[in-house]
């Protein structure tokens, strides 16, 4: 029987020096791109490289980063999750309904809301995973269905209304800064770290890469492919739930129309970060940098005074360029 390690040749093997070098090189390109952007905007706008603006950027990329971490798992197994924006809205209004209940202490309400938000996300993710894995259907179409289900559910639960007036301590928590770094961003960063450990040092992580590379081989090796696939979607759903809580803590409202098209930014962050849409190759650290690139672009282009439509065009261009770069990187790393 093959070992799991052999099934995932592209997973970074940190024990081997040769592979460590390749691992560094893999991230060097995207890191360089980010650096160039930062230098460019620093020259283009006097406001870009200021403490206040850096805080802004960190605040603004947090939600996308959380979604993109979950998305990385799904894309690594060769799937896609189009429902995360809607699931964010659904989890948000469920948590919002819970947190505005009367007759409980603030602590109880916040705990229940966190569980409700996370739980909603996990349930949606489990449904995505179970349905697509059980019937072997493309996750593209199943999660497209969930995109509608979750949006409809969010509107239904919230009666299409914005939910507001959360406990004071919850609203305060969202605005805590530690040396100018938003606490919500630090939590997202912690999530990246956990995801990195899971993907690189656990059997689960090995299997995620393995399934993306060669699902049949993993199955023939006697592993429960369905378990790992459903697990990846559940993680993605949980991240959507977390992102919903971050949205609530930042804006102090829940909105059933929150998160429209957020899945596209999350997918873009993952792809710009060098994870292959075909699965099996990529990393969550690349995703972190991908999220930074999208956030820095959105921020910097406004600071430069570019109009909205130009901004949208440039963001689209960057995504396409990233995929072309990834095409060449994939070719060179296999030859």
């Amino acid at each position: 029987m093959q070992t799991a390690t052999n099934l995932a040749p592209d997973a970074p093997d940190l024990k081997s020096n040769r592979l460590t070098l390749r691992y560094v090189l893999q991230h060097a390109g995207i890191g360089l791109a980010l650096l160039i952007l930062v230098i460019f905007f620093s020259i283009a706008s006097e406001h870009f490289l200021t403490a206040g603006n850096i805080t802004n950027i960190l605040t603004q990329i947090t939600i996308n980063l959380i979604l993109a971490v979950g998305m990385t798992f799904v894309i690594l197994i060769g799937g896609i999750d189009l429902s995360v924006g809607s699931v964010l809205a659904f989890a948000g209004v469920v948590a919002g309904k819970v947190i505005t209940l009367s007759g409980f202490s603030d602590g109880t309400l916040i705990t229940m809301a966190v569980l409700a938000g996370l739980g909603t996300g996990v349930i949606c993710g489990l449904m995505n995973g179970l349905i697509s894995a059980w019937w072997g259907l493309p996750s593209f179409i199943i999660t497209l269905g969930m995109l509608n289900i979750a949006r409809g559910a969010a509107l239904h639960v919230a009666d299409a209304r914005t939910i507001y007036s959360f406990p004071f301590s919850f609203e305060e928590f969202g605005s805590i800064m530690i040396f100018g770094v938003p606490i919500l961003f630090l939590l997202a960063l912690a999530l990246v770290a956990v995801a990195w450990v899971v993907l690189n040092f656990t059997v689960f992580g090995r299997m995620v890469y393995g399934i993306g590379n060669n699902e049949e081989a993993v199955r023939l090796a006697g592993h429960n492919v369905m378990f790992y696939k459903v697990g990846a979607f559940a993680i993605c759903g949980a991240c959507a739930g977390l992102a919903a809580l971050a949205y609530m803590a930042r804006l102090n409202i829940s909105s059933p129309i929150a998160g429209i098209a957020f899945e596209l930014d999350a997918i873009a962050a993952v792809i710009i970060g060098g994870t292959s849409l075909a699965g099996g190759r990529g990393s969550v650290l690349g995703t972190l940098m991908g999220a930074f690139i999208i956030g820095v672009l959105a921020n910097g282009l406004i600071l430069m005074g570019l109009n909205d439509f130009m901004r949208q065009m440039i963001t689209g261009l960057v995504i396409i360029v990233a995929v072309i770069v990834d095409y060449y990187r994939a070719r060179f790393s296999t030859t």
Partner: protein
Amino acid sequence: MKFTKFIAAAATSVSLLATAAYADADHPKVGLVMKSLANEFFQNMMVGAEAHAEKRGDYELLAVGMQNETDFESQINAVNTFITQGVDAIVIAPADSRAMVRPLKRAMEAGITVVNFDVALDADAKKQQGVELAFVGPDNRQGAKMAGDALAAALGEGGKVVIIEGNPGADNATQRRLGFEDSVAEHGLNLLDSRTAYWETEEANTVFANMLTANPDIQGVMAANDSMAIGVVQALEAAGRDDILVVGFDNVPAAKALVGEGKLLATIDQFGSEMAANAIDLAIDVVRGGPELEGWVRTPIDLVTQ
């Protein structure tokens, strides 16, 4: 006359229930076509219309909403279905002010009383199709100007302001932007920047935080709806700026609360929950033989301050 109406209706509908086309004027059928029910404004309107139907009790309400703000194809289908069902009146908030003219013309040819509310149909498109149709609704431009004027009065001449716009291309977004710009021109305000945040809170929060970084001397913000105003208020709190004034539009409950706390200077109430109900009243009057509506029947708008 009845016969020609029947021919027109039959020609334009897939399966006409002939008897239904001549429903009793004492208990007319009214088809209400709204925009996105995902929008709090239309949700309130829907609830208001249902309450109104129950209270009056002398007409049958058939209401449909859309998936999203720009889903005019569903609206066209809804209008065609109503023609088929033989409703007596169609009361519609068009999702597209040009595309809806032709299907509504068909409805009128089928003898249905049509009342256009909320967003006016395009005047040129109406002329082109030879359609004469009154508009019942608020003056979004006037409303935005009222909010802008409230901000201008607080800031004084030369106040530095930015505009947060609604969806590019949406008629009410355009009207509100123009209203804000009217106010800027009239009071000699200094407009630093104007950007869309697609009606959405998180987008407005992000976009405005970045505008504030680029223009730290902003003194006032005109947001084209309350969802975006909420995002702006949150960005101001995050930046620790309590010296910048914000006005919104719509008077949704969450914004009303902010007005009460003094975090939002003003918002505009256009009485959305009553708007559909009022348009239905007007439609039923015409169905029962009242005079046809003409021109622009303006509905009330009100400035909401602390």
